[in-house]
């Protein structure tokens, strides 16, 4: 049983949960994730470790289905049946000079540990954060305190520039701005667009993939994805891959495998999608 120390609603439909899990916290590296299961009837879902201290891990999630909805109803002092990790390979953090971290939606929380790690070894970090509107730009003060430069975009222009993260990236590349590494985490379509932008200029680009998975240890193959013609398992080979080689069309299709079932479960439980 894993003790919930806090579960705050930090933005519309977005929650930040702090979980007491010393074994996971003690090993957590940037870019890694854990799997939680709420109770005996719960499913196993992966969540990126957004932050950690010696005993606790922080996860940030958007309510998008039955499990995240049920998670959002958990109060401080409640318990989760299971948490296991850290899973996946940690991000390779080497001093490369200029790093551009791009994040969309809850990806903003997920990019935080990666930014922190790059800063800790002295890289110059530029961040581009995007969301639908001002309220959904989470972790703003945390990232402002860390990044050397920060650009914010919103679909409606309520904060920063009106538009998408891709617009800022294109402009920066054209300016021209030297980038040694682009790191992208967020919706699959966002990562696809970023890969398409950086491919012609051959800027090394990593994408942190968010596939469906069950066990997280390479056992089921639910998370498999075509990367440069080879099938890779996101849980054990990833979650980060060379974005120029990832088959994002396949990723987007595979993310929709259970959409009908999930919509049905939400409907009968009266959870609005």
């Amino acid at each position: 049983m894993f003790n919930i120390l806090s579960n705050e609603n930090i933005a519309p439909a977005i929650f930040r949960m702090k979980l007491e899990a010393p074994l996971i916290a003690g090993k957590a590296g940037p870019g890694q994730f854990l799997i939680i299961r709420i109770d005996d009837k719960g499913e196993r879902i992966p969540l990126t470790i957004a932050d950690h201290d010696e005993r606790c891990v922080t996860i940030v999630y958007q309510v998008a289905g039955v499990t995240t909805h049920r998670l959002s109803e958990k109060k401080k002092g409640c318990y989760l049946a299971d948490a296991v990790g850290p899973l996946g390979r940690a991000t390779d953090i080497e001093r490369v000079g200029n790093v551009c971290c791009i994040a969309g939606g809850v990806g903003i929380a997920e990019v935080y540990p990666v930014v922190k790690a790059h800063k800790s070894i002295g890289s110059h970090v530029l961040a581009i954060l995007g969301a639908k509107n001002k309220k959904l730009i989470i972790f703003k003060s945390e990232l402002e305190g860390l990044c050397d430069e920060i650009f914010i975009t919103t679909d409606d222009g309520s904060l920063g520039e009106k538009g998408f993260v891709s617009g800022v990236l294109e402009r920066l590349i054209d300016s021209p701005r030297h980038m040694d590494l682009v790191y992208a985490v967020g919706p699959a379509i966002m990562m696809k667009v970023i890969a398409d932008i950086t491919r012609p200029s051959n800027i090394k680009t990593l994408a942190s993939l968010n596939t469906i998975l069950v066990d997280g240890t390479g056992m089921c193959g639910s998370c498999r994805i075509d990367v440069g013609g080879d099938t890779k398992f996101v849980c054990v080979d990833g979650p980060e891959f060379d974005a120029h080689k990832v088959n994002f069309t396949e990723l987007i299709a595979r993310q929709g495998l259970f959409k009908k079932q999930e919509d049905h479960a939400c409907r009968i439980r009266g959870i609005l999608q």
Partner: protein
Amino acid sequence: MKKQDPKDRIKNFNEVSLGMSEEEAIKEAGRCLFCKEPRCSANCPVEIEIPRFINAIKDKNFDKAIRIIKEKNNLPGVCGRVCPQENQCEGACILNSKGRPINIGALERFAADQELSNEKKAFSLSCPGPLDSARGKLRREKPRAGSQKVAIIGSGPSGLTCAGDLARLGYQVTLFEALHVAGGVLMYGIPEFRLPKTIVKKEIEYLRSLGVDIRTNFIVGKTSSMEEIFELGYKAVFVGTGAGLPRFMNIPGENLNRVYSSNELLTRVNLMKAYLFPEYDTPVNIGRKVAVVGGGNTTMDSARVSLRLGAEKVYVIYRRSEKEMPARREEIGNAKEEGVEFHILTLPKGIIGDEKGFVKGMECMKMKLGGLDSSGRRRPMAIEGSEFIMDVDTVVMAIGQRPNPVFLRATPVLKVDRGNKIVVDPETQVTNIEGVYAGGDATYGEDTVIAAMGAGKRAAIAIDGYLTGTKGGAG
């Protein structure tokens, strides 16, 4: 032995085989000739004294029967159900020459179920004392206080057996399991209708009663490394991490939606109870026409699970003929009775998808059998120009597993072969590292539950020898 009617059972996940009644069991036990040199016991990988326990059933002393079985086998309810007895004890029974062998599997299951149905008695009557590993007999001693710690990695059949035997020898045993429940393939792989999960859980409770400490949600190689396990004071480690990495065929279209590995389908259904969705949160998306590729027990399990999930047609696709199928005849028979259609001498060439990325068909080729190959079976050869499209909307790849990579990648000091299987001494199960033993599917590829248990047993004896200084430990 009675079975659920096929028409009914394809609509539920309840156990297919209904077991023997007391009367049937006593009658069957009465047929045993009680051979002086029983070939059944000699062909049991864990050497159960079969005629002794059958004799106890004959005398209606069911408590004694289960005690005799448990001297050698910590998981009788499991083995009575899933062992391939036809190749082991029953296959060796002297009565084969005169007709029908003793149904030893059913009798073992009967004894186990008798006990499990009477839980109060279970622990008091059937917790034998520590095992004297040298003689293989019971030595009724209490576990020694302050005894040495042994870590078992993975709680499948080999790990459970090794853990149970070491606990009975008085060691402090901790079982580390990556998933949220113990049992490994017994929980995620074998379906409820062949092995009810309550049986597995009760047998694991029995191990707990022997003093085994079970730590779920703990991935050795991620949560802690093997070196850290030793630093925690464990004096020996047994690795039973199983064969949990699914094989695919590497044909076009394999990453389409509704192409599953058998592992994924079975894990969703067995471990996560997707057949009870949406009461349980884990979904599974099965279409109307399912092709299951392969010829093993997992293939049959996947096909029969698909039927129970509501598929209208389920096809088994196998490139050789039925004779070469590695699955148990009983399981092939069960699948056929339930309406699974067999397409033998058929090889998938590619999977065809629709515009949304879902399976809409599978291209196959017809095969013919040629001369013998290295496995001693006739080699399948493609018939040119025989390509055809099979109308299916779901494909399950049940063509085998490779060893799980998580532990191995984190433990590069461990010697593995080219197939990533851990190299062990077949007598002691010791690896190339002193104090580290391994067994089950992580070592020799895929085999049976009972073969893995046999390896766990050999390892327990060797670990005891190593820790008491009676035998060397390094391989």
